[in-house]
């Protein structure tokens, strides 16, 4: 995994879990545009700006902390515990790989 980032706006691919696809009325994958190096925070900001109905479903409205049973994966790595401002892998920044928003294996 390379965490180098490319300058300028990036088109980041995001894969949503099925319930959030239904909520946002989108397919498996969406693309959002991020200014500067993409991070969890900037990608989610862009995602929520484009799909306001997703606000509060991935991270808390106020604290912006990831909800407990949401995970972020990319490039076969679990990024859930990375700081929200850490750069995402280059493969995500270049659109080669998507950022996966995943509902954790929990619940019933």
């Amino acid at each position: 995994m390379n965490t180098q980032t490319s300058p300028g706006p990036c088109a980041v691919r995001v894969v949503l879990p099925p319930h959030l696809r239904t909520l946002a009325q989108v397919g498996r994958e969406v693309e959002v545009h991020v200014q500067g190096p993409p991070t969890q925070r900037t990608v989610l900001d862009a995602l929520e700006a484009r799909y306001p109905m997703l606000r509060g479903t991935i991270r808390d409205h106020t604290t912006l902390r990831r909800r407990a049973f949401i995970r972020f994966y990319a490039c076969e790595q679990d990024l859930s515990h990375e700081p929200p401002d850490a750069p995402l892998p280059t493969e995500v920044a270049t659109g080669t790989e998507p950022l996966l928003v995943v509902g954790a294996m929990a619940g019933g």
Partner: protein
Amino acid sequence: MSGVRVLVGTRKGAFILTSDGRREQWEVSGPHFGGWEIYHLKGSPADPSRIYCSQSTGWFGQLIQRSDDGGATWTPVGNEFAYDGVPGTHQWYDGTPHPWEFARVWHLEPSLTDPDTVYAGVEDAALFRSGDGGQTWQELSGLRGHGSGPSWQPGAGGMCLHTILLDPRDPGRILVAISAAGAFRSDDAGKTWRPINRGLESEGIPDPQAEVGHCVHHIAMHPSRPDVLFMQKHWDVMRSDDGGESWREISGDLPTDFGFAIDVHAHEPETVYVIPIKSDSEHYPPEGRLRVYRSRTGGDEWEPLTKGLPQRDCYVNVLRDAMAVDTLEECGLYFGTTGGQVYASADSGDTWAPIVRDLPPVLSVEVQTLP
């Protein structure tokens, strides 16, 4: 011809059951929001096409959905429930202070007169109001802030505000109930609040007659007599004739006075219904017999209603918001079970039949009487 629309919230989605006024043939629509917990959905008395729905899961949190066409289509509206100011603490199960944390919306109560105004009772217990059709929510923080909030404790199901009663005679009067804090009343449209638990007695708390701390399960009111309130408490069925200023027990000859649901006949304000549940550790009907009990005397004297209900090997529960009455000339009753059945009676409870038998566990049942 008039008809009814029964709104059913379940552990895995919402269902809408519709029938004409005979209430014999039913059309089932759903699941809406399949896979999500639907704690409650309720229609606006001022505009029956307007329905509000509380949708949540542990994964994705809380959503509020609104329909403007009687449940055919839905739009997600505002889902930010931010406590007013510094939330402070209530008591945790171990007696330590615990910060107020929003978990979910248990109950939505649309205004009697304005389709865009709706109240939300939430866990951790607080009351919110929206005046813009659910787009934004503001806490009526005088309830949590009136003084006793730091002593409130959660019941087994969480510290939820589950009952909201709006007084049709006086728009300033709102009554709410919280497990396990008790009942509270505002006479100024939610600005200030006070406990109204005098007469309640709960053996499960250190002072059985404490001002707060009672596990009220549900309260029902007949719109023609807003001062008469009927309460199913954790144990005990209670009645108030003075808007909650004082309560007296009316359990009478019930086989058990534990239960969750309680409601009042649409046209007979002294006719009350409960569904006795064996105990707080055995959440099923006594003797495996599902019986609705009806009092035509405002309590104390109760008769079992069994025709059409399972009278053996039945071990389901009926939750607090899972019983409703319609306002057709012959009053209809509806209740849903944790076994996924929704039963209906078109004759004030004399006879019953299932509308559906195999839904996910039912959390709530409301009914709209349509012109």
